[in-house]
């Protein structure tokens, strides 16, 4: 198969995975901040519930997303009625499916990273006149971002490989919602092994390149803060 055939699903995959990672990270950071550093039973229950997307089989997750985002789902119906937006069979729907699947990874990483920050540093900032949001942006986050980024990388990997939920919500529309993993599955099912193998190679190379870049990034900033 031609390399150009892999370009379309590759670009789509990168677009979907990047946006999904951004959303999952923002929401994960916000929820981690909201849950705070104190571990109470109620907060642990909330965290466990929010981790479910990681535990549920992706197709089950996809089914519930379809139920919620679909034309008859409460969220999907509202989007349709008030905004005329339908997420089913769109790449935006794929972003949501991947973001939901990847969200527990960013949440857990962010919460762990935030509670690793010395509480006394945050207190020090408060006595220096910093508001809670200033404490977060000037102390907590700068000290925790490496852990947050590690979570985001896992989330990106998860989003890139997301299959079941995306298949249910976004379908496998070539050129529109067919990401690499969906294209590989379709190629295998259609018995087109050559195409499948080519797509697998593209997908592997992409993943390795992304992880290498990320490792470089982490390494360099580490040197910068240590010296």
């Amino acid at each position, binding site marked *: 198969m031609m390399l150009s055939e892999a370009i379309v699903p590759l670009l789509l995959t990168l677009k979907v995975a990047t946006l999904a990672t951004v959303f999952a990270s923002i929401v994960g950071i916000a929820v981690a901040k909201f849950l705070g550093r104190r571990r109470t039973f109620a907060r642990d229950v909330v965290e466990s519930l929010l981790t479910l997307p990681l535990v549920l089989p992706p197709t089950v997750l996809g089914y519930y997303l379809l139920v919620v985002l679909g034309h008859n789902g409460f969220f999907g119906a509202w989007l349709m009625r008030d905004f005329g937006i339908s997420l089913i069979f769109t790449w935006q729907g794929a972003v949501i499916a991947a973001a939901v699947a990847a969200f527990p990874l960013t949440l857990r990483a962010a919460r762990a990273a935030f509670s690793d920050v010395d509480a006394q540093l945050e207190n*020090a*900032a408060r006595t220096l*006149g910093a508001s809670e949001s200033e404490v977060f942006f*000037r102390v907590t986050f*700068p000290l925790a971002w490496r852990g947050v980024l590690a979570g985001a990388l896992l989330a990106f990997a998860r989003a890139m490989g997301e299959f079941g939920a995306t298949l249910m919500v976004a379908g496998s529309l070539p050129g529109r919602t067919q990401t690499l993993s969906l294209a590989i599955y379709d190629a295998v099912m259609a018995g087109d092994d050559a195409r499948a193998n080519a797509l697998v190679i593209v997908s592997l190379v992409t993943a390795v390149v992304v992880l290498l870049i990320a490792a470089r990034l982490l390494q360099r900033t580490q040197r910068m803060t240590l010296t």
Partner: protein
Amino acid sequence: MTRIAVAIDKRIRADRREFQLSIQFESDADVTVMYGPSGAGKTLTLQAIAGLLRPDSGHIALNERTLFDSAKSIDVPARKRDIGFVFQEYALFPHLTVLQNVAFGRRRGWWNRNAIDEEVRAIVARMHLERFGDAFPLELSGGQQQRVALARALACKPHLLLLDEPFSALDTELRGQLRTELIQAARDAAIPMLVITHDSDDVAAFGGKLVNVENGRVIPPNIGATHFQTT
């Protein structure tokens, strides 16, 4: 006029043990020393004064300004109390340089910008830290770190400076020298101090008003004095 007036109660539960903090004292001295064994509740009291710990009930006032009053539901947040706090382990921001640490409280907003004003430089110079302006806290000695912590607190022009066991993290040789430096620096800045310590040498060196704390309570000065002499 009373500079600082404290009358608070706080019940703390941790690991199924209970600790009752019940502290009352007033002071108008330039230096107030709160003295007592570790675990007596001194740090908790300091945190309550700074607004980092909310008492169950009581009243805290600084220069006639009420900072906390459970009866009137007043609880001024830490950031608005104008109280400087030098933490026991200094709590310097490890990701910021010495200059950025000292300038931290002088600027509002979500970013740690690099603009350092003249006043910050002056404070840093007064603390003999100008050579280390661009160094990170972890590269400094304990004594230097303490001076950064002090400079950072003073840069906000607080109305009261709280010092939590300022010398416990330092070795004995350094203590004497730093004690003198610290007292001098605070006098220069003309800011009243509340120091807590479990070291009787500190009590003698600081002078000022003495508040004895044991087991969560202030105990009368004469008992404290006897206790102080025997230790």
